[in-house]
C-alpha cells in the first residue's frame, strides 16, 4: 500500500516534470471568420504540445477594445501571457518593463537567420526578442476589377499619371473609378501609398520613420498632398464612413474599378469566389512596384510568474514561427509568412508575388518600409497626429501648402 502510494507520487512527479503542463492566455482580436480559423490552428498546436490555451478574444474596433482591456490587466499586475501587440507599441510596452525575454527560444531556433532584419528589429526591445511575428501584410496594393478595365480598354496603371488617365476615362462613362472608405485609417492608408509613390522609399523613411522636418516641409510632400487630393474627385458620394470591406465589394461587383487597400482585402475576393488574374488584379500601388510597405502582426509575450506557464509561453513562441503554423495561418488570412525560407508553393499568385517583393527588398536592404497607417513606423501619438492632418486635408478644401505646414507642426507636437 505504502509502496503503491510512493510509486504513484514518483510517477506523478515524473509526468509533471516532463510535460510541464502550463497555461497560456492569449489576448487577441482575430475574431472574424478567416482570422478565427487561423488562430484556432495555433490553439490546437499548443494543446498538442501538452499545454493548455486560454482564449481571451476581445472583438471590435481594430483592437481598440482589446487594447483597453490589456492596459487595465497590465496595470493591475495580471497581464495575460501573450497579447496581439504590434509595431512601435512593442517598444512602448518594453520600456515599461512588462515583456518577457525570448532569447533562449530565438537563439535555439535561429530567428535571426530566418527573419529579415527589418522584421526582427520590430520584435526586439533592447536587443532581446520580446515578441513573435505571426504574418506580414503588404499595404501598398491596388485591387482592380479585370472586367471593368477590359470593357473600357484600360491597361493596369503603372504610375500615378496612368491611374488618373484611367480614372478620368471611367468617370466619363459613369463608373466610380476608386472605391474608397472615408475613415481616418483608410485615408491614411491611401496617403502613405501616395507618399511612397511620389517620394520613393527613402523619402517615405525620412517622413514616417525619422520625422525629418526638412522632408516633412519639402516640395515632395506638397506634391504628395496634391496627388492625394486628386483621389477625391474619383470617389463616390457615399464614401464617408464606409467600411473597407464594403468598398472591396464595390470592386468585386464591378461598381468601382480600383481600391487601395492592404492584402487582407484578398480574403473578400476569395470569399466571393473570385480568382486572381482572371476576375481581379492584385497590383502594386501605381509607382510603388518593387517597394513593400509592411504591416506585421505579432504576439508580444508578457513576463509570467509561474514557471510552468513560462514554459508554455516559450513553447508557443516557438510554434508561432514553425513552418506549419506560418503556412496555415497565412493562407487563411491572405498575408505572407515571415520566414524567408518558407515554401510558397501552396499560396496563390498574389501571395507569391508579394513574397518575391518581400524577399527582394529585404535582400537589397532597400524598398522595404514600415507602414505608418498601420502603426509600424511610429508611436500611436505621432500616427494619430498624421491621421488627423491627412483626413482633415482630404475632407476639406485645405490647400496643400497649409497641409504641409500643419503636418510638420502636428508631428513636432506629438513627439
Amino acid at each position, binding site marked *: 500500500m505504502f509502496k503503491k502510494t510512493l510509486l504513484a507520487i514518483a510517477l506523478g512527479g515524473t509526468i509533471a516534470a516532463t510535460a510541464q503542463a502550463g497555461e497560456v492566455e492569449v489576448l487577441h482580436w482575430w475574431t472574424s471568420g478567416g482570422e478565427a480559423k487561423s488562430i484556432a490552428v495555433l490553439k490546437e498546436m499548443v494543446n498538442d504540445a501538452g499545454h493548455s490555451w486560454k482564449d481571451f478574444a476581445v472583438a471590435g474596433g481594430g483592437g*481598440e477594445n482589446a*487594447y*483597453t482591456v490589456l*492596459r487595465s490587466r*497590465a*496595470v493591475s499586475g495580471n497581464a495575460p501571457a501573450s497579447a496581439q501587440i504590434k509595431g512601435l*507599441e512593442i517598444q*512602448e*510596452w518594453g520600456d*515599461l518593463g512588462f515583456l518577457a525575454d525570448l532569447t533562449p527560444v530565438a537563439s535555439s531556433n535561429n530567428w535571426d537567420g530566418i527573419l529579415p532584419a527589418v522584421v526582427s528589429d520590430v520584435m526586439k526591445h533592447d536587443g532581446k526578442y520580446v515578441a513573435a511575428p505571426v504574418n506580414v501584410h503588404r499595404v501598398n496594393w491596388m485591387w482592380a476589377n479585370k472586367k471593368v478595365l477590359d470593357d473600357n480598354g484600360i491597361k493596369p496603371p503603372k504610375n500615378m499619371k496612368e491611374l488618373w488617365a484611367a480614372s478620368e476615362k471611367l468617370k466619363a462613362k459613369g463608373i466610380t473609378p476608386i472605391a474608397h472608405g*472615408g*475613415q*481616418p485609417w483608410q*485615408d491614411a492608408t491611401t496617403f502613405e501609398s501616395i507618399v511612397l509613390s511620389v517620394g520613393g522609399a527613402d523619402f517615405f523613411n525620412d517622413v514616417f520613420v525619422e520625422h525629418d522636418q526638412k522632408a516633412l516641409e519639402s516640395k515632395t510632400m506638397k506634391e504628395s498632398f496634391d496627388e492625394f487630393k486628386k483621389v477625391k474627385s474619383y470617389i*463616390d*458620394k*457615399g*464614401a*464617408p*464612413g464606409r467600411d473597407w470591406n464594403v468598398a472591396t465589394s464595390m470592386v468585386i461587383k464591378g461598381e468601382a474599378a480600383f481600391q487601395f487597400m492592404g492584402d487582407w482585402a484578398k480574403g473578400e475576393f476569395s470569399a466571393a469566389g473570385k480568382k486572381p488574374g482572371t476576375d481581379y488584379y492584385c497590383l502594386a500601388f501605381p509607382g510603388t512596384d518593387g517597394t513593400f510597405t509592411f504591416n506585421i502582426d505579432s504576439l508580444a509575450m508578457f513576463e509570467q510568474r509561474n514557471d510552468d506557464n513560462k514554459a508554455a509561453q516559450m513553447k508557443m513562441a516557438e510554434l508561432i514561427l514553425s513552418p506549419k503554423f506560418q503556412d496555415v495561418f497565412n493562407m487563411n488570412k491572405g498575408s505572407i509568412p515571415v520566414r524567408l525560407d518558407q515554401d510558397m508553393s501552396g499560396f496563390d499568385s498574389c501571395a507569391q508575388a508579394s513574397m518575391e517583393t518581400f524577399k527582394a527588398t529585404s535582400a537589397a536592404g532597400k524598398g522595404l518600409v514600415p507602414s505608418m497607417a498601420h502603426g509600424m513606423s511610429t*508611436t*500611436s*501619438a505621432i*500616427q*494619430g497626429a498624421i491621421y*488627423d492632418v491627412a*483626413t*482633415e486635408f*482630404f*475632407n*476639406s478644401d485645405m490647400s496643400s501648402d497649409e497641409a504641409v505646414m*500643419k503636418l510638420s507642426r*502636428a508631428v513636432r*507636437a*506629438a513627439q
Partner: protein
Amino acid sequence: MTTHNAQASVLNENKLDGNRMSTSKRSKGIDYWLPKLVLSPTVAITIVFIYGFILWTTILSFTKSRILPQYEFVGFEQYVKLFLNDRWMGALANLAIFGILFIGICMVVGLVFAILLDQNIRAEGALRTIYLYPMALSFIVTGTVWKWIMNPTVGIEKFMHDIGFSGFSFDWIVDPDMAIYTVVIAGIWQSSGFVMAIFLAGLRGIDTSIIKAAQLDGASLFAVYTRVIIPSMRPVFFSAFIMLAHIAIKSFDLIMALTGGGPGNATDVPAIFMYQFSFTRGQLGIGASSAVIMLMGVTAILIPYLYSELRGEKQ
C-alpha cells in the same frame, strides 16, 4: 361583553405603546445609525468612483502619462498642447453648435407639441406614445438609422432621384461643413418627444383655477400661455435643460454611430477626442486634461444656473 373587549384592547394598546416606547428608547442608536449605515456603501462608492477618479484624472492631467499612468509632473504642458491642437478646437466648436441648436430646438419643439397635445384632442394617448417612442431607442440605433436615411447613395437623395426629382440634393452627412447639423437632426428626433412629455406633465400640473381666473379677466388663449402658464413652468424648463445639457455634453454614441466623427474630423466632439487620446493613441495626459476641461465646462454652465434656481425657490 363588547365594552369588556374594548377595555381589554385599550389596555393592550397601552401595553403595546409602553413596549414601543421602551424599545425605541433602547434602540435610539439603531434608528439613528441605520439609515446612515445603509447609505454608507453608496456614499463610499460615490466618493471613490466619482470624486476619487475626478481627482485622479486631474492629477494625471498634470503628468507626462503616455500609454499608462506615470507621475512625472510637467505642470500645464498637457493643457498647452491641448489648446494648440486643431482637432480639440474643432471639437469645442462642434460641441457649441450642437449643444446650442440641440437644446434650443428640442425645447421649442417639445413645448409646442406639449401645448398642442394639451388642447384636449382626440387620440392624445396614441400621439403621445408615437412622439415618445424614439426615446425607447438607444442612440446607437438612432445614429445607424439616420446614417442610412441621410446617406446620399442609399437614403432620401437616392429615393428622390428614383421617383424623378433628379435635381434633388441632400448630402449634408458627407459634407464636412454641414455634417454637424445632421447630428443635430438625429438628436432632436430622438429627444424632443421626451422633452414634450416633461412639458406635458408640467402643463397638467398647473392649477386650473389660475387659468380660469386669467380667462375671466379676459386674457386670450395666447396670453394665458405666454403670461401665465409658461412662466409658472420655470422648474420644468430647468429640469429639461439639465437633461438635454448632459445629453449634449456627453454625446458620444450618437456621433460614433452616425458619422464616426467624420467626414474627416468634421463632427468631432470633446468626448470622442477624450476617448481617442486616452485609450487608443496612448496620450493619457492630454486625454485627462481634455476630460478636466469638459468637467469645467459642465460646472461653468450648471453652477450659476443651479445657484439662481435654488435661491429663487427659497424666496
